[in-house]
């Protein structure tokens, strides 16, 4: 009997605590492409610092999967994708509010072990005994890799096609793969764990990153403010520092 009373009291206390915190903080949920991980974490921190009691909740993943989750009703206020095709999927599903705006561009590069021990000198160097890892063609970084290979007339033979760009980077950083096709920004974010070998013609297939608020946003004002912040001078500076190009 006493135990029941204790449990009931605890439950009530928890409920009250839940209400109290729900009143104090407002949460804006942002779905963002995996390649935006470090940048958006920084942006969210700056955004939160300006606003009392505002919490930015970030969910990173392959853009196509995030678009799919949005279409299935995942609760998000903002969606930032790594290419137009992934954003178009969300627009088509009718979950995007208004017109998506481009906020950055990103180029592909070859991530290799520090010091480039395999002496890889470009796309044409990705053959023979080089263990190559790329993104799956279903996600933006995979699409970009295929476009690059087609332009350069190279046939890529990856040992694995990973579900998102951070998995590719992880395989190279762990030393399991000799080379991985990732974004310029991923190599910079990896801070010395991998080196970059530039790809000629990477500019031609640079991804444009679109951002938009969602139709069913729980915090439409905050969502709009976050998008504006990403597009603002300060937001753009963070993106530029991370290696992104202007949209």
């Amino acid at each position: 009997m006493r135990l029941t009373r204790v449990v009931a009291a605890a439950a009530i206390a928890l409920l009250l605590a839940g209400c109290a915190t729900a009143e104090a903080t407002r949460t804006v949920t942002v779905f963002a492409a995996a390649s935006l991980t470090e940048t958006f974490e920084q942006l969210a921190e700056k955004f939160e610092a300006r606003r009392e009691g505002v919490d930015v909740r970030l969910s990173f993943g392959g853009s196509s999967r995030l678009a799919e989750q949005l279409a299935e009703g995942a609760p998000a206020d903002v969606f930032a994708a790594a290419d137009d095709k992934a954003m178009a999927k969300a627009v088509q599903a009718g979950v995007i509010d208004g017109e998506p705006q481009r906020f950055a561009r990103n180029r592909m590069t070859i991530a290799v072990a520090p010091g480039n021990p395999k002496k890889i000198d470009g796309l044409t160097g990705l053959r023979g005994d080089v263990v190559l890892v790329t993104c799956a063609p279903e996600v933006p970084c995979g699409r970009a890799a295929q476009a690059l290979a087609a332009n350069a007339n190279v046939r890529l033979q990856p040992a694995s096609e990973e579900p998102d760009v951070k998995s590719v980077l992880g395989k190279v950083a762990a030393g399991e793969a000799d080379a991985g096709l990732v974004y310029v920004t991923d190599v910079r974010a990896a801070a010395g764990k991998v080196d970059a070998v530039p790809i000629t013609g990477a500019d031609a297939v640079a991804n444009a990153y679109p951002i938009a608020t969602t139709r069913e946003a729980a915090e439409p004002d905050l969502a709009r403010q976050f998008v504006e912040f990403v597009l603002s001078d300060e937001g753009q500076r963070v993106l530029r520092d991370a290696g992104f190009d202007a949209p």
Partner: protein
Amino acid sequence: MTRDSTLRSGLRSPRLLWIPAAAGLALIVLPVAGLLFRVDFARLPELLTSQASLDALELSLVTAGLSTLLCVLLGVPLAVVLARVRRGGRVLRAVVVLPLVMPPVVGGLALLYLLGRNGFAGYLLDVVAGVRVPFTTAAVVLAQTFVAMPFLVISLDGAIRAGGDEYERVAATLGAGPWVVFTRVTLPLLLPPLASGVVLSFARALGEFGATITFAGSLQAVTRTLPLEVYAQAEADVESAVALSLLLIVVAIAVIVAAGPRMTARVTEGARP
């Protein structure tokens, strides 16, 4: 009320349990039903016969079959030794069930850090024999065996300990050596629980995802098994992912049916610690 009818009503499950019981059943049945509603039956044949789907199905059946075989070859001796060990049985048992309670992704990482290029075994294999395990079909089989073997060992271990060792004692008093006792007495007695262990480990191997994608990667016809293909297709073509999920469910049901109702009962008994 007679004592008899009181006894009978007392043995019925209390009505109060029916509500959560129904909710529990619904939790299993409804998601599967939800998936069925999403299946595009008109496109089903085309989706299931695409090269990527066929490659994934073939790879899944081959790797799950091979890893089940490995589970039997390694798991049966392990279970027999485990059940008869005098000291340290508890610790050993805890070690054996580790892959059961460990997230498969962690298992994949563990395999990678042992057999990857920078793992000590992987490094030795590469230098001495020129063999690299990650990103190969062999890596898929290893990952599946890692997660599936505990099911087989536990089924057998439970059965051996529940069965006692009377027959073995009799055989031994009649002059049979350890090997003869094992092959002529222990093994035949183990066939029924072994069958259920095989079904369980095959099913677990077939569904393996986390350890595989971490350790073996994902490449069509080499390492992309059905669950990985479902995951990849969910990015591009959801209809295709749904169709493949249906295929996996059909295979799972086929396994249960092939096992038969008696075996299902035995599987659950075997799984009881």
